[in-house]
């Protein structure tokens, strides 16, 4: 794994040096979502018994921020270094494709978790939260972040320009994360849209993550775990395959 520790360190340092943009800004955005939605819906919506809407919203916002930032980290780092040409500095040394994958995914996960913890800490003042089963919280945070970080690597390698990456982000990642039960329980949806939501893997990430807080969820956390873990393994294999072949990195 020669080169892995440095590549990981470099990727963490890269986002940390612009921490206002990469960590503080997403926390503020999530806080604004919470303030607006809880103000409008607190007295009108009750999803689970004995759980206020604001409390219901917090884990969803934490997970959504975590996922979006994990994706943003690996994808933006790769597209920037491809466009500027500095990707050559990691292609010339003897870094294996596995080390490459691990470094980018773990660094993206670190950013996702940093933002997630930031959102959690910032929103703790607004709603009393339980931590019914912290193990589920941790498992879904890591697997969900890993999935989006892998997707970020795929998008960053596939995109040749910022426009293509923006399309990937806005037409795939944003709808998947927004329409995944962050702001509502899918039981409140019409049957057709409930069915559609079951095809969205992000729904299982958020539902399982929320189960860790309240001990209740729309589907069994074990079912969510199987689906999320399967997605993680498949996406990791796809990403590793792309890196091994040098897809769009080595001509």
């Amino acid at each position, binding site marked *: 794994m*020669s*080169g892995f*520790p*440095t*590549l990981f*360190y*470099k990727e963490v*340092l*890269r986002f940390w*040096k*612009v921490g206002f943009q990469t960590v503080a800004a997403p926390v503020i955005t999530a806080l604004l979502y919470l303030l607006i939605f809880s103000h409008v819906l607190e007295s009108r919506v009750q999803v689970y018994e004995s759980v206020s809407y604001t409390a219901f919203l917090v884990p969803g916002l934490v997970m959504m921020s975590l996922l979006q930032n994990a994706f943003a980290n690996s994808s933006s780092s790769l597209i920037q*270094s491809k466009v*500027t*040409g*500095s990707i*050559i*500095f*990691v*292609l*010339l*040394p*003897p*870094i*294996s494709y596995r080390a490459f994958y691990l470094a980018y995914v773990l660094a993206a996960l670190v950013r996702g978790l940093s933002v997630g913890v930031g959102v959690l800490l910032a929103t703790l003042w607004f709603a009393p939260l339980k931590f019914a089963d912290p193990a589920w919280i941790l498992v879904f945070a890591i697997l969900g972040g890993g999935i989006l970080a892998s997707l970020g690597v795929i998008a960053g390698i596939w995109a040749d320009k910022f426009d293509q990456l923006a399309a990937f982000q806005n037409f795939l990642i944003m709808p998947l994360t927004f329409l995944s039960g962050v702001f509502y329980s899918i039981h409140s949806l019409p049957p057709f849209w409930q069915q559609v939501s079951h095809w969205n893997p992000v729904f299982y990430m958020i539902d399982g993550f929320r189960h860790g807080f309240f001990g209740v969820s729309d589907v069994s956390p074990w079912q969510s775990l199987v689906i999320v873990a399967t997605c993680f393994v498949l996406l990791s294999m796809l990403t590793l395959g792309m890196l091994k072949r*040098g897809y769009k990195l*080595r*001509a």
Partner: protein
Amino acid sequence: MTSAICVRQVAKRFGSVEALAGVSLDVEQGEFFGLLGPNGAGKTTLISALAGLVRLDSGHIEVMGCDVVADYRNARRQLGVVPQELVFDPFFSVRETLRIQCGYFGIRQTRERDAWIDEILENLDLASKANANMRSLSGGMKRRVLVAQALVHKPPVIVLDEPTAGVDVELRQSLWQFIRSLNRDGHTVVLTTHYLEEAESLCTRIAMLKAGRVVALDTTANLLRSFAVHALRLKLAPGATLPPLLAGRAQEKEGAWSIAFDQYTEIEPVLAELRASGCSLEDLEIGKPDLEDVFVRVMRGKEGRFPASSGNGADAAGPPGTGTVAG
């Protein structure tokens, strides 16, 4: 002794473009080797293949005996590449950039590592900019950092892909002074450049590429001897005309006539003819051959006077000095 670089029958196509068409050549350890050719000749593709940035369609390449595909880890440890493009990571300072590059090669944080980084910074006149962000550096400074990045892991083979493009004279001279000292210390240096006078003064051996093929491969001295010709340059006095016998073999350029010759003994008959015709001269000088003449002749494919090889590059080449030309 193992060749520093061994290229065998290397071929690469990009769609319909044949970037490399069966290139073979060897670079011996300690050589200062020039890789010349017009734009699109395949120089950068060959360097990219050497560095593992391009996957070959066929053939193989070894760096210090390590295959660049099968044993890519060791091959890349032996190689330092200065890329053609002026690229940099805008997030880091010069020192951070070099420390990170060390880490990519598995070099741990030690006093020796920091001492080597300091030495490189000193030699490339970058010490005062060590803690400056890469974005704040001038183009020439960024170019020096690229050279420093290629050297952090002390590679025995250094490849410089047009390192002086757009670089001012002062930096160019200090850069070559440093690279020369590395070569004297035993590093093998491979250089591509469009500045032929640089290649002529620095490189002991030169390969010329054209359309993905090696069209000349020999020592610089032999190439100059074999390809380039001396020329007698004559500036006629006002009103004088060149005698018809000489006019047939002379070329006019910038108001002067140039008559090519291979042997100095050919000069006397020319002067005798001038005397006999009463042609008076304003100026006369003997022009020495340079690499530009060689380059132009090779690229025009004027190989008629030279032994054309059936093969390509190293496959057809004997030891340095034998002279190899492919059409």
